[in-house]
């Protein structure tokens, strides 16, 4: 199943968005009718600080082609400092991912505020294109039968 | 010009005992009262009529009412189906470009450029006859019709009213 890099293929990207900034930013993108590709599946979490490395790895393992974690801008966190923890964790995770052979660009971290609807659409667009270029993620997929040897 | 007298009496507070009226108002009144009987059946060929609303009579004079009277009379005379209205109309109609002394003042080129809007408006109605109840309008509409190559006939109202009159034994 070489869906590969042909342009019809739409990756599936899990986006963990904090409720207060980035989720609201995604809503604003809709309110302002900024269009972006239908590849993103948003999971609403209270804070980007809620997202552990495990959740990101689990998402990849479930078959996500990419992951986006987005929180409030530094200093804007509704829970004071959760986004900073998230950033720190992500910095560590990035190196680990590289180590286990996950391409850079598959997992993305960003800040999007409640007033940045356009920015959200842009990020969604960029992440989608980046993941499209990388093709479907295979490294961590739990495949029982069709796992290529 | 209706306005010259109407506004003159008003502005200079000239004492007078008479009431100042327009012949158009009277035509309409007489037809409504049955004093004048008109019959549009002469218009077998279905000549289409439209009209000019003289600024001095309508917008500056008696307003929409006299313009509606004008249309009432034309419809009675030429048949209601044979009247094509202009737009804009009534109090908001364009000046023909002959008013305000323009016909006397010279500046012919300007006057005709001015009249282009009126010409296009009248031409758009496709009417065969344009009724001009004011002498200035009459001269200007006649001129722009000729100048811009219009096909209509520019006339006063009375010619057609006469044509449609039903003469009873008194005159016959």
């Amino acid at each position, binding site marked *: 199943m070489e869906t590969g890099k042909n342009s019809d293929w739409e990756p599936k990207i899990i986006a963990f968005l904090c409720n207060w900034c980035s989720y609201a930013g995604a809503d604003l993108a809709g309110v302002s009718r900024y269009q972006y590709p*239908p590849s993103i599946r948003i999971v609403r979490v209270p804070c980007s*600080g809620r997202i552990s490395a495990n959740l990101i790895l689990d998402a990849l393992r479930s078959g996500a082609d990419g992951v986006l974690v987005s929180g409030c801008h530094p200093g804007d966190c509704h829970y004071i400092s959760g986004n900073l923890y998230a950033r720190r964790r992500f910095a560590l995770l990035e190196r680990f991912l590289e180590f286990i052979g996950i391409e850079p660009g598959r997992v993305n971290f960003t800040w999007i505020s409640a*007033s940045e609807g356009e920015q959200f659409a842009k990020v969604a667009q960029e992440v989608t294109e980046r993941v499209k270029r990388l093709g479907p993620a295979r490294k961590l997929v739990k495949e029982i039968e069709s796992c290529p040897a | 010009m209706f306005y010259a007298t109407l506004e003159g009496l008003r502005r200079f507070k000239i004492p007078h005992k008479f009431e100042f009226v327009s012949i158009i108002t009277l035509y309409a009144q007489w037809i409504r009262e049955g004093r004048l009987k008109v019959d549009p059946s002469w218009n077998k060929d279905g000549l289409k009529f439209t009209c000019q609303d003289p600024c001095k009579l309508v917008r500056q004079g008696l307003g929409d009412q006299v313009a509606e009277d004008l249309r009432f009379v034309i419809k009675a005379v030429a048949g209601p189906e044979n009247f094509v209205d202009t737009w804009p109309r*009534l109090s908001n109609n364009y000046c023909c470009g002959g008013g305000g002394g323009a016909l006397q003042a010279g500046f012919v080129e300007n006057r005709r450029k001015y009249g282009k809007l009126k010409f296009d408006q009248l031409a758009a109605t496709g009417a065969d006859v344009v009724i001009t109840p004011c002498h200035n309008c009459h001269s200007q509409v006649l001129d722009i019709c000729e100048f811009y190559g219009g096909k209509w006939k520019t006339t006063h109202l009375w010619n057609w009213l006469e044509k449609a009159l039903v003469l009873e034994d008194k005159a016959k």
Partner: protein
Amino acid sequence: MSTPKGSVLVVGGGIAGVQAALDLADSGFYVHLVEKSSAIGGSMSQLDKTFPTNDCSACILSPKLVEAGRHLNINLLTLSEVLDVSGEPGNFTVRVKQNPRYVDPNKCIACGTCAQKCPKKVPNEFDLGLGKRKAIYLRYPQAVPLKYAIDPKACIYLNKPGRCGFCQKVCPTGAINFDEKPKELSLEVGTIILALGFKPFDPTSLDFTGYGKLNNVVTSMEFERLLSPSGPCMGHLERPSDKKEPKKIAWLQCIGSRDINRACHGYCSSVCCMYAIKQAVIAKEHAQSGDLASSIFYMDMRTHGKGFEAYYERAKEQGIEFHRARVHTVLPAENDNLTLRYTDTKGNVHEEEFELVVLSVGLETDPGVMKLCHELGIQLDQDNFISTTPFAPVATNRQGIYVCGAVCEPKDIPQSVMEASAAACKAQELLSKARWTETKKKEFPPERNVYAEPPRVGVFVCSCGINIASVVDVKEVTEYAKTLPGVVFAQNNLFTCSQDTINQMAEIIKRERLNRVVVASCTPRTHEPLFQETLREAGINKFLFEMANIRDQDSWVHQNWPEKATEKAKDLVRMAVAKVLGDEPLPYNQLPVTKKALVIGAGVAGMVSALSLADQGFPVCLVERKDRLGGHARKFFRTWQGQPMQEYLEELTKRIEDHPLVEIELGATVEEVSGSVGQFKTRLSNGKDVEHGVAIVAVGAESYKPRTGKWNYLYGKNPNVFTLLELDQRFIKADKALSGLNQAVFIHCVGSRVPERPYCSRVCCTHAIDQALKLKELNPDMDIFMLYRDIRTYGKREHLYQEAREKGIIFIRYDLEHLPVASEEDGNIVIEVEDQIIGERIRLHPDILVLASGVRPRDDVGELSKLFKCAMTQEGFLLEAHMKLRPVDFATDGVYLAGLCHYPKPVEETIAQAQAAASRAAMILSKDAVPAESITAQVNPMKCTGCGVCTRVCAYHAVAIDQNSGKAAVDTGLCKGCGACVAGCRSDAITLRNLGNEQLMAEVEAAMEG
């Protein structure tokens, strides 16, 4: 005043009336809400979208209406009118006439069978006659109350008894009652709030617009209905003549506004510029062909509100054409099209054909409202709006009767909502002794224990009119939902948030014995609370609920990929179902309220808020960074209506200083904030700790000083160049030298509406013009030139602009490509500017040059907003929770904002906003406890190793290692449910209720299954 009554009468069920009613009902008062039509919602319910957020009007309004309709302490009196009022403030008796509905609201189930059978069709006034309705009708699909009514003028039976009567025969519940008679009620209330709204100007008398004669000339209100999915063409944008989609539309501004000749309305209607831009933008979006061209013909583009200027700029980028030209007459063209002839500023004539012309009609007072005001002895102003004064912006001339919304001046929705809360605030001040004396308490049925039950999930898929359904195949999604594990019921609704669907949902939950609910519709940020309450009413814990955001995050952002959007919608529903299956009932935690307010900033806004709360009996700590009270207003000479500012300020300051409940902290700032709504703890820079239940941020803003750069205009270089406030200083000091000036020049928009500061400062046009008039007072022979881009004297301020012209003050328009140039010749100022109309450069030699330089946010606002976790706009003003309907709330509960830190505004609006903030704050302070976080962290002691990472990451100190057990323990009162501890725990020992790792993973895995 003897003991006042604990109830309030609100007259008018539009957004202003509803907001006032909700504020009061939520802070301890019983409200009678009188509405003359058969449903509340007012003009806002007729709108399609709202500016500047493009929110669907019905979508944001509906929850409020439903809330008002269901509120235990709001008595909705529809089809009713006030006859007269007697008594005195605190104890009014009001006679109300309630006209018969002829349908028993307790029996009507809004099934619509009656309307189907009714043979009589009449023009539907809700669609402004563009569509038809029956003699028995619903005002609109989401009407509250959702009950049919019979129009007695149209009904065949009521006019000729014995004939017809079909509705009665077919009504399944026997709700029709032809014998109903008008009722007269007598209500005892403490105060009255008039929220009587406006009426759109009827342009029929303006023959040159062609309205009423040319088919494809419509009013803006009609156009709203043409755009609306619940309108006569189901949102498909058809023009009246041939039901075809217009490809080219023109908007004509100022129809019935700023017109003292034909319309006799000298005022500006304030909202038309913005709604025209919005309509042009939305029309483009609606147009199926995608190539709609829009042009707006205007005099001055008035985008003076928050976010408006950016909206205007974006509209230009989207290709909407703006012509500074007015059209004399709309002319018919071929195919029912319309020709507009217009002259540009240079005098060139253009002719352009359009397929539809929209008249941007102004707002005026309904004659019925004038009559009512006359009967109640309420004074109207020269424009027939209710008279108010700048320092008491919601008070009428009759004590105890307040006013809000467009009935006192044309205004937009946020301003109306602000005033509604302000009016509620004034009512509370008057009646504070009677709080909670007449209210009822909400009781929910006991909750069903669902622990042992197998999951029975119900899915409700919303069409949101056409907002979702035009892109996503909602039927397919609904059918798909039925196939998901655990789902036993799925249904598609036109508007899931409408009262009937909500009621139906509660019925379905009971009937189908659902124990989990998923709503696939808009965003949980606005609608979750509404649906959650429905669960509670149906006897289910409200946390057994999830939403799938298939509108904001699907149909609206994937308009060009309908199939993929449908697939995504299915994914989102599947994810929500997966999540809800793991949801558990959670406790409804409560936090006791510290009944004290912290007000930050002692300018006019802060002082008004503080005083109002103190007058209601709540202690206030008022913090001011400077060493004196007064703030920005100290620099102002007078209001635009002419009242001296300093006198007012003195009086206000004195009242604050003398008030026993206000403690003033001068020279102090906020350093540290902890806690949350109900229980804040704030440390001030002077070392004091303040415990408070709410906070109002009113820290003001600064005036921009163009010391350098492009907008400098010799400021700081030539001694005769001033800012507006510097000139005000000279007025305050009664500087005699001003009378001797020969020439004065004002430059507007100095450093405003430019890339560095893209917003309009709203106040400068009016302020500058008032100053010019003051100079003319001092010396009538002075030549005064105002160099401007657009004059933005919105509302009644337009009279000031007219007065200025009348007095010979000359206005010369410039644009960014042709800026005025200031230079010095022998120390004298010389200004060169081009007059666009005569096409020549003008040389001016002013004795003083005044720069109308606008308002800029304070640099330290960012710090403060972080402390209270409040958001900011890109320009640096504070960002309210919702631009339209929550103009004084922050997204953070218990924190409110007022004054210039929100956006530039004149003093009357600042006062109204400050009163509104006090009203919102009182909603918390009036209660003993507020709901606290239910989604909290939970430790599994079996797994906990007591390593303490969780205690370090918790910003609220809610987790601690128990001394005895050596394990982590969570204080649920402090926990905010952020989940930082969960992500930090190495042993998977701590989890967040209903947001555990397994549950999030179930959601992620569900996303991948499609």
